[in-house]
């Protein structure tokens, strides 16, 4: 039987090698006692690189725990030390894995443990949970925990908000100078920002290829190939990787290659991936000839406002501009605009039980979008990592009704 799951990309091999190299460097740093900074996924990674830190991202580890289905086995350890099963399951699975002494990095990259941090740096532009998450490690490991406190629910990224965060970033620079392996190097920051911006633009162009019909790749592919824009932001390796990926995707577009053979439905996915169900869901969608062509999760990861000529304000602006940091009205407008841009005929809202900040179905948005745009919408209950919150069979019924609605809308 043909593999129904997404695009057959030659870049898959390059991605595997690139990630192996990244984790290999972390392993070497960890074993050699070189400084490793932990950073939230939209934290100031460029600044950390400018100080010469190796940068590790616990959220990436959380996603790996979900995708490998290890999360469900280790979360109880975090619940046992007081971290509720109602809070972020990235947090509970990551801390649970640490307490259980296991990591998916062992099988994938030969790392027996996550690298020991020299400093933990968060940005609350995503959620407050990252602060609690990092502070647990700070207390447990006796490691300094530093953070940026960002205003949220932004309609506009105002000059006042930018100044507030820019000032914190400069303060963070001074604090990091006491912990870093080398002095702050403005040229290195400029270089990292330039790399970030270029990689972000390339990533955006890669995603944009799915606006074409048929889509050459789909959400299950996007979630895998976004790894470099998360963990290698600010590096030339990320730029090179996305140049290659873009070339491959454009070739697929030129040849009319479809990730979903016989593509009939085009869908926008709003919210977090359900990491442990990526493959079954991709198979389910493909079996109905449905292509998930765009998503908030992957498409909003485009930090193209980084600017090395005005680094502090540009970093502040870029970090504040991310989708999750914005107002309900902005989010709705973004989803509608992006869905139309990609020719999506319906929107699936993943209501992720333990991730309220990345679940946008709880204040009437699906109903508003259906009313104003006439788009079929589906709210799918699940979770990013907690397998207790998702039942494939129960969700299958809802998905099939949703696809029937889309079929009817196609006429």
């Amino acid at each position: 039987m043909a593999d129904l799951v997404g695009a057959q990309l030659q870049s898959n091999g390059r991605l595997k090698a690139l990630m192996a190299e990244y984790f290999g460097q972390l392993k070497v740093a960890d074993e050699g006692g070189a400084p490793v900074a932990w950073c939230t996924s939209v934290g100031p990674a460029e600044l950390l690189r400018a100080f010469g830190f190796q940068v590790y991202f616990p959220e990436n580890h959380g996603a790996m725990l979900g995708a490998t289905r290890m999360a469900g086995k280790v979360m109880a350890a975090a619940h046992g030390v007081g971290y509720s099963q109602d809070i972020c399951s990235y947090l509970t699975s990551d801390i649970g894995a640490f307490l259980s002494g296991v990591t998916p990095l062992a099988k994938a990259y030969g790392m027996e443990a996550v690298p020991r941090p020299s400093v933990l740096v968060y940005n609350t532009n995503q959620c407050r949970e990252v602060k609690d998450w990092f502070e647990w490690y700070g207390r447990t490991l006796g490691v300094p925990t530093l953070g940026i406190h960002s205003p949220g629910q932004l309609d506009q990224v105002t000059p006042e908000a930018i100044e507030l965060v820019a000032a914190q970033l400069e303060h963070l620079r001074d604090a990091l100078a006491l912990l870093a392996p080398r002095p702050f190097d403005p040229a290195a920051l400029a270089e990292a920002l330039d790399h970030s911006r270029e990689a972000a633009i390339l990533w955006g162009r890669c995603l944009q290829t799915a606006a074409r019909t048929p889509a050459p790749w789909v959400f299950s592919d996007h979630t895998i190939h976004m790894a470099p824009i998360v963990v290698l932001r600010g590096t030339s390796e990320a730029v090179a990787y996305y140049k290659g990926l873009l070339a491959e995707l454009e070739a697929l577009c030129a040849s009319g290659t479809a990730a979903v053979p016989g593509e009939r439905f085009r869908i926008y996915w709003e919210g977090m991936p359900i990491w442990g169900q990526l493959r079954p869901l991709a198979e389910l969608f493909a079996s109905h000839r449905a292509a998930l062509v765009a998503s908030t999760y992957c498409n909003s990861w485009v930090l193209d406002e980084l600017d090395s000529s005005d680094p502090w304000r540009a970093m502040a602006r870029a970090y504040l501009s991310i989708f999750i940091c914005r107002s309900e009205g902005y989010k709705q407008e973004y989803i509608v605009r992006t869905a139309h841009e990609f020719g999506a005929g319906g929107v699936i809202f993943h209501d992720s039980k333990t991730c309220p900040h990345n679940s946008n179905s709880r204040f009437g948005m699906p109903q508003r979008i259906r009313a104003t745009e006439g788009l079929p919408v589906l709210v799918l209950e699940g979770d990013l990592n907690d397998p207790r919150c998702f039942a494939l069979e129960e969700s299958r019924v809802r998905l099939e009704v949703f696809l029937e609605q889309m079929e009817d809308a196609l006429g």
Partner: protein
Amino acid sequence: MSVDFFAGVDVGSSYAKAAVLGAQGELLGKALCPTGLDLKGAGLTALTQACAEAGVPVEGLSRTVSTGYGRDEVAGATRTRSEIFCLARGAFAALGRAMTVVDIGGQDSKIIYVDDRGRRLDYRMNRKCAAGTGAFLEIVALRMGVPLENLGALAEQTREVAPLSSFCSVFAATEVLDLLRKGYGPPAIARGVYRSVAQRVVDMGPRGPVVAMAGGVVAHHPVLLEILRETLGLEVVALSSPQLVGALGAAHLAREDGPSTEESLEGEGSATMREEA
């Protein structure tokens, strides 16, 4: 001259149901059997029995649409359709007017708004929880030590309603003990159990002019109709053979559908019922 026959098979979590229609949509045969653990066997048994009642060999069917939990296990099905679509079609075939279809099954419950042309306007399903479903009644009856089939008769013995939450089946069973300690008799508790199921239906937002009940729970617990009328303040009717509504709708869709699975995927526009939402 060949004669066309069409079948619908609804393999639910508790029962498999089948209906066979003639060329004009007339009901020729119907059947129902417990699903058990053999989804494939249950679907085939129900279909075979319905065909036997209709006097039609299984291999003589023109098209068969399957639905329900075991829809992919029905041998010979030319197409699968969602339960929502099938229930709406089956209910409209029976009543022919605007309604809210309420289906309470063994493991889930759902409501579907249907307009006066049979179009599905919207639907809602219960959250991932068995409260308000047949499984809820089974669990509470077990805790009360009452055979499930006697629970309705018990509830009809009184107008008193013991206040039972509708939050969780497992906790509701524990609540029963608390209610007994507080002095409520089994009839009031039984009535409270049905009120709890009715409240779950209310929470999903059914609206008039008429609420049409389908599914196994109302088939086996007619007292629920009376309690739903009290709770909703709307006209509430039980559809004929409420457990078979989905199978009947599937049979109608088979009759109205394209000639085969692949072709019908392209030709959905031929279906008589359309989605507005």
